[in-house]
């Protein structure tokens, strides 16, 4: 929900998602073009700075949202860098650090991922889901997928509320007092939710019919603030990122 809030309230909310998407893609391309871990780290920081200074996403939020991904990356890096095996005498766990060449290779891979994370964070923190779907529609993604995304995204909030309400009602009657009761309550909640999903999908179908729908879901596209200019700016700054990535460091 943190991402949600950011996406709707950042300063670049009205900037066309195409521009933001382009900048993001350039960021990812730059990460792969770059030849040294230092460059890629710099790129990651630059993208972060663009989000914080340009779009006014708070630094704290950016880091908080990125934290799980970065932690995951750190764990994977560690497992890549250290190999563990049984051996020696007496038999015990042996830790081996990989050699230097491999190490720098791992560093590059990880820093590239870091840069990629930064770029994707930039995109998701500045662009609401509905805008992203709108962009994909313009890029001629298959209709069915977009419809599923639209409904899925909306349903997410509807069912989160259902789950919250049901759980609260269960807790109010001591449904989670003991582990045994908790299991039982959870089961009931799941059953209830399944039924609701079925009923709601029926209702949604009727609502679609009532508004004269026959087939795919069509919406009016949002209008964005100066689309050409922002797209141009985005492509220039994206190219700058890639150029920067090529600078040997």
């Amino acid at each position, binding site marked *: 929900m943190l991402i949600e809030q950011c996406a709707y309230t950042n300063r670049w909310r009205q900037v066309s998602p195409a521009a933001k998407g382009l900048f993001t893609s350039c960021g990812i391309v730059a990460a792969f073009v770059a030849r040294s871990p230092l460059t890629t780290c710099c790129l990651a920081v630059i993208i972060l700075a663009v989000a914080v200074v340009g779009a006014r996403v708070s630094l704290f939020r950016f880091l908080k949202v990125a934290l799980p991904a970065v932690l995951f990356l750190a764990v994977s890096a560690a497992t890549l860098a250290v190999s563990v095996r049984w051996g020696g005498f007496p038999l015990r766990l042996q830790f081996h650090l990989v050699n230097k060449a491999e190490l720098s290779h791992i560093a590059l891979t990880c820093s590239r991922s870091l840069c990629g994370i930064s770029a994707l964070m930039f995109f998701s923190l500045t662009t609401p889901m*509905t805008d992203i779907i709108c962009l994909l529609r313009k890029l001629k993604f298959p209709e069915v997928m977009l419809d599923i995304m639209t409904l899925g995204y909306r349903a997410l909030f509807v069912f989160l*509320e259902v789950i919250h309400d049901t759980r609260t009602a269960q807790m109010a009657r001591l449904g989670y007092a003991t582990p045994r009761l908790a299991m039982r309550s959870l089961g009931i909640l799941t059953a209830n939710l399944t039924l609701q999903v079925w009923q709601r999908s029926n209702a949604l179908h009727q609502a679609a019919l009532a508004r004269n729908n026959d087939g795919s879901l*069509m919406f009016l596209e949002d209008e964005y603030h100066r689309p050409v200019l922002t797209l141009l700016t985005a492509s220039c700054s994206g190219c700058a990122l890639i150029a920067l990535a090529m600078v040997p460091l």
Partner: protein
Amino acid sequence: MTKAKNAILELQDVNFRYPDGSVGLNSCSMSIERGSRTAILGVNGAGKTTLFLHLNGILRPQSGQVLYDEASLDYGRESLHNLRSRIGLVFQNPDSQLFSASVREDVSFGPMNLGLGKEIVKERVADALHAVGLTDYADKPVHNLSFGQKKRVCIAGVLAMQPEVIILDEPMAGLDIAMQVELARILDSLHAEGMTIIIATHDIDFAYQWADTISIMVKGNCTATWQISDIANSIEQFGSYGLGVPRVAELHNALVKLRLSDNGNGYPRSHQELVKHLNEIVI
């Protein structure tokens, strides 16, 4: 049952049973006059929602027929498209009819389905949001709106299709007093523009205050249709349906009996009107 002079929608002896055997409509006949305000009154399970699904062509009568503009529906693709673009249906639960997470997108859904051009759709969306007082919320995500606001988004979504008839299923349910007043104001302005409005409710006082015509539904059957002006005179008979009687009419009748009020300028239809009337009487 008196037939309306200028019926826009009509049900003739419609029967409908759900697959599980429960009765939806039971030889239901009813007619809705063009430009009228009709309240469908009935307890939960009386068949109000089922009736509305028939009026919009979503459910099909198992026997009997539905007439629109005095022509029987033929349930072909084209005639359904035509019907649904003229008859807007607002369901009871906003969460099961909002498709998109963006307010503007959702309101545009109906007019886009009508195949209108982008510019026209844009205009209609803006007009519809203005009519329900949500212009400032166009870019807000739906899930951050209150229940009442979501309900208004649903209404805007139907208004944007510019129907001739708007049908609202229990529109007041779940709204606080201020929002009810606001919604009543929206309905009044729609009626002033000549729209035919049908609502389902079990709030007899609101129906009495707002409608021209009240139709009573009992167990899937439309048992009676009343003009508002006839109710105060035969309040006992009206009470016999077990749905209660309009409190203001009851109170007014009692006051008249005690000679504390009179029927000078017609019957008051709301609490406020009664108070105003009493203040005007010099005893």
